[in-house]
């Protein structure tokens, strides 16, 4: 997994949740970070804007960890 994509994803989540980026790793779960389903949708929106990608609904709904987001973004960037 690209360090650049991961650090940008972490920065997006930190900004959206107003929490320090230092507390977020690839293995952090949304549950641990107190990201509920609506927060999750907001983060997906911010990630789409950050990377200019389109994340489909079923992928959006199955995100559980920061790694899920970063790996999903990489796949979309590679596919595009």
């Amino acid at each position, binding site marked *: 997994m690209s360090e650049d994509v991961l650090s940008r994803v972490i920065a997006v989540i930190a900004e959206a949740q107003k929490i320090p980026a230092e507390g977020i790793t690839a293995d952090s779960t949304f549950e641990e970070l107190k990201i*509920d*389903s*609506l927060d999750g*949708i907001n983060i*997906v*929106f911010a990630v789409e804007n950050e990377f200019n990608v389109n994340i*489909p*609904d079923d992928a*959006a*709904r199955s995100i559980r960890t920061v790694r899920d987001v970063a790996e999903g973004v990489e796949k979309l960037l590679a596919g595009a």
Partner: protein
Amino acid sequence: MRERAIAVTGLGVVSAIGTGVPDFWDSLRNGRSGIRPLRFARAKDLRFPNGAEADGYDAAVHFEPKRLSFIDPFAQYGIVAAREAVRDSGLELTSDLKDRLAIITGSSAGGQAAMDDGFVDLYAKGSPRVNPLMIPRVMSNSAASHIAMEFGIRGPAFSVSTACSSANHAIGQALMLLRSGACEAAITGGCEAVFSFGFLKAWEAMRVVAPDTCRPFSKDRAGLILGEGAGMLVLEPLERAQARGARVYAILRGSGMSADAHHITQPSPDGAALAIRNALADASLDPAQVGYVNAHGTGTPANDPTETAAIRKAFGVHADKLLVSSTKSMHGHALGAAGGIEAVATVLAIHNSFVPPTANFTQPDPACDLDVVPNTGRASEIEAALSNSFAFGGLNAVLAFSRLP
């Protein structure tokens, strides 16, 4: 005053499964869904291809061209449904009655299409001006105002906005005004028009719209399908209806309301159960008297099990005897109009002793283990029925109807 029975004497509807009660009921009876590929212009730029657009509705048939420019589609639907309900009721609109008729409409987004058009002019086209009719078209009270103007009605008139519960709240308010004697009759329900690009994009962003169809209570349900239209009722005291020889469809027996105090989009079973209990209490109904529940049943992963849990909490052992169907499976989720369209459906179910099905049902979900009347409707002598609305923001409103004894 709670003993004063309030009768439903007129019905009117615009929906994806028919404009006018006969077509609407025929579709419901036969489990016929109005969920189709979207026809509107920019549909291809949306993540979801399907919606429940109004069927059999041609604005030119109902309005003069000049008048049309003043009225956003959401209010057009409300006016057309109100016209049908008033005609259906046979109410004689004397000058005295017009002073004492209430109009209470529900809409969550009002004339948002007009706002969308105006913003395209300003931001996309760089125009220095917007249409001066934008405010009269956008304001969500415009339906109530136009209905008043159309019939010359001068009684209490206002609109209610509580997202997906707007129409149920509006009808509940009409019930209270009637019981208190603040009005002698009421035209009430909801109206909504959702198919403008900006509004649909907002729904797309919440990831709650299904890519296929609306499958309430099914294990593989994938979300809601947006719908539009209007449902309007004429209400008056039963004594008054009987004195003038009116046909009484059913009694509007009670309304129950509650707030979840939980989350701005996620529902809570406790808040919903409280609204159901409040409706039963207001209607002086024992849970065992209720035969049918027209569910909120949006088909989202969140709503259906939460609603099932709420129904079980409120009904206890009787829950297993209930017939619970979601007619959103056929007419879509019409937001502020939902409660109005569903009230018409619930009243028709009682009047015809027939429960419309939950359409598009594929496989049962153990978390939604009530009798959801899958795919085929069922004849049933319904003594009393509820219609549930559980909105975003956790504002719940439940109506209770009963058969004329």
